């Protein structure tokens, strides 16, 4: 999957890829101790497009959200359905528009489009449902995960996305006129992103988000976000969909 991280304070957007293995479950957001929220995503594989020499593709086939407060709830989202496990179990089709509210938790499905999970009014995740009518061999029905409101997540929040929520970044060693919006094709030296005291070489790229409806210019960190993220991406692979373990 492609990851995009917006740093509003730094007015920068950073992106990276995680080329996990099918079956891997990635920790996206981990704030179990404070807000009680954990988000994991399971990967599914698909072969690379014919004729390309790229790796196989991976997509999110399932996204799970564990909410610990006020009541423990488990939300499992797939391109077909949403399962809510709380006091009782509710299975909702992603093809139907419906909203469920219980305690401080609300789940809203807009048929074949989005699933919005709102927790306590201060945390909101939006999951885009990508369903293909006639998928190519390298395409799979999959999900996109967007953080819509992160106010309720703590400063100790971690995970592939969660660790950047309260961070600031800066660019350094830009050569020539290359900037976040400038022409970098003439540059022979990579710009360096300063994050959490680490230096990460980046290049400029454009990413399509929101089902391709919008483009975003971002600084791309290679090699599964090496140095950008704390540890390595393998450190974010968890054992099961409802794992809530904290970052060590």
């Amino acid at each position, binding site marked *: *999957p*492609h*990851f*995009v*991280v*917006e740093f509003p304070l730094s007015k920068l*957007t950073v992106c990276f890829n995680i080329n996990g*293995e*099918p*079956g891997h479950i990635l920790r996206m957001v981990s704030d179990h101790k404070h807000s009680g929220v954990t988000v994991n*995503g399971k990967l*599914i*594989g698909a*072969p690379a497009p014919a004729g390309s020499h790229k790796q*196989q*593709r991976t*997509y*999110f*086939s399932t996204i799970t959200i564990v909410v610990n407060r006020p009541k423990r709830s488990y939300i499992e989202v797939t*391109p*077909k*359905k949403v399962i*809510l496990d*709380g*006091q*009782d179990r*509710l*299975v*909702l*089709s*992603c093809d*139907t*528009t*419906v*909203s*469920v*509210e219980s*305690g401080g938790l609300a789940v*809203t*499905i*807009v048929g074949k489009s989005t699933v919005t999970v709102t927790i306590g009014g201060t945390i*909101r995740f*939006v999951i*885009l449902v*990508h369903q293909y009518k006639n998928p190519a061999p*390298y*395409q*799979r029905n*999959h*999900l*996109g*995960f*967007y953080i*819509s409101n*992160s106010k309720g997540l703590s400063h100790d929040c971690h995970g592939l*996305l969660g660790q950047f*929520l309260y961070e600031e970044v800066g660019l350094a060693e830009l050569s020539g006129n290359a900037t976040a919006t400038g022409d970098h094709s003439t540059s022979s030296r990579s710009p360096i992103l300063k994050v959490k005291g680490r230096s990460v070489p980046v290049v400029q790229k454009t990413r399509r*988000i*929101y089902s391709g409806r919008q483009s*975003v210019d971002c600084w791309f960190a290679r090699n599964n976000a090496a140095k950008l993220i704390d540890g390595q991406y393998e450190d974010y692979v968890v054992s099961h969909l409802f794992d809530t373990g904290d970052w060590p």
Partner: protein
Amino acid sequence: RVPRQVKSMLTKETKPHIQELSVKTTIISRYAFTAVSCTMLNRHSSAAEGVFQFLIPKNAYVSNFTMIIGGRVYPSEVRPKEKKVKQGKGDEAKPKNKEKGEQSEPEVEVFRMGASIPGRNRAMFMLTYEELLQRRLGRYEHVTSLRPLQLVSRLSVDVTIVDHSTITHLEVLPLRNGKSNTAVASGASAAKTPAKPALPISTVIKQNKTFCRITFSPNIVQQAKITTSGMLGEFVVHYDVERELGIGDIQVLNGHFVHYFAPKDLPVVPKNVVFVIDTSASMLGTKIKQTKDALFTILRDLRPGDRFNFVSFSNRIKVWQPNRLVPVTPLNVRDAKKFIYMLQPTGGTDINGGIQTGSSLLSGYLNADPDANHHSVSLIIFLTDGRPTVGELQSPSILSNARTAVKEQFCVFTIGMGNDVDYRLLERMALENCGMMRRIHEDSDASTMLKGFYDEIGTPLLSDIRVNYTEDSVQYVTQHLFTNYFNGSEIVIAGKLTNQSADSLHVQVTASNSDKSIILETDVALRQREVETERHVKEAAAGVGSGDTGVGTTGSVADDFVERVWGFLSVKEGLRSRLKSQTSREREGHTQQATDLSLTYHFLTPLTSLVVEKPQVLADGTMAEDTPTPTPVPTETNKKAASANELSDETEGEEDTAQGLHLKKDQPGGQSSRITKTTGKVVKRPVQKSITISKTSADGD
């Protein structure tokens, strides 16, 4: 035109009428997902009790059940079964009776759910279950029970078979217990031979090389011509697929694999067989006659390389040829027939004595010349119609004695006839001694069933089969050591891949056959297999997807079918291990493991229960505002499961007494677009408003 009699019958019907009953099955490489959808209409103004009843195969697990009544959705939940405190002595007699009742069950289980349907309203019941079809006698059998207990306006059965291998044989049998046409198709030409349109029941078969779809949709008049009671019978499909010569078919999907191993064209391994036959007084009449008929037929089928003997047991133990096993010669067969002919039922049942005598005959023969028997398969076929009444009466002692006598040198296959058998004893005896157990029901044709069972195990092709996969590449592999492989059967193994980035998986099968040890091995290209497996899952989805109005049978569950096969096999294995466990600690471990897996895959097993919320309907026929708390589904299966819990440790938790129907996850919470309410949650149409989404995201290509 609906005949007047049928119209009259429908008008007089007071219970809610079944408007539609749809049974859709998708079989992807032997793993069958079945979704049943039943819509009932309460024509009357007052509330009425609607009873949804469906028979599911014993080998299947229910995975979901949901009701929609009066626009409200009532999903179910699979929960661990609560342990019950053991009953006092005064109650201990009850389980025995119940146990006796359980043992007379047929090969299906009844799932029953009753619910009040408000006046002039509809109820929809949706049930899903899954099963791994076992290959027996060279074919897979899929059975759909059609006993809705009334004429149904729209009745349809839809069976879709998608396989990785070519479908070599396909046969739709006449309805069991009913009169119907038989449509037989074979190979790709089947598409050109649909069922005759003039026949009263419409069966249509569409087939190509690896896919076939069978639809059976008799209209109400056609149903009435079969029976007006709604007991149409069983819709049975037999099929088989092309088998490879090598290590078999391996399918890979989402980090799991399943391996189907059924090599063909192998020479037959000679067998040493001792038949141990109950001749107690209760066998008198039809039972002994049918047993003798079957044994006469079996004698004809023994092969020249085989060796055999007979033991009969009642109060007295009789051995046909003392202290030896004899070769199959015309003279020996003739003498054996005489012995069988002379068997006269009398006296009690000395199960321990029968097994001990049979075992000592066989082990004596094997120990006399171990080298000569190295490449043969040895087995005892044990038949009884009752409980031990003479000699050793305690089941644990009989089992322990059997283990000691068998010493893992041969396998014990047990057959119980009728209602008065301690099936748990027979099942454990078979499980502990690498055999299988079969039930012959009281009114069944015992001769055919006994011969059928013999046919399943009468042609051993391999022994001591060991299947190995690349070390460190797989984990949680289900049983991969097998004592025997019989012609017409299939060995199925599943597991998880630990190294999903590996290009290939090395598979090695070692086994012995008639005169040599064989090793089959190959490297399986994992990526290629995964693409192929995904393709035929898609074919299955496409095959049933169009016009699918009921509960979907494929969808996301089928997307993970390999993992579910693994889950299914692992649960079965856990339950078997639990039954075999010798200590309570061991038993607890297996129980926990099997329960966890059952919950993970939402299987209703003897260790879990299905809980569903039931609607409250007021006296005026309307729905109550508040819904009650969920209660366990009062199904026959759950009742049996509950009663099994009340049994002592010795009898508790019989694997096949409490099957679980499995409610498919794709549940219709969203099917109702009106405002609905469930416990603690309000489900409503959302107000569509624009939501600001940040760019911070993780998305696909």
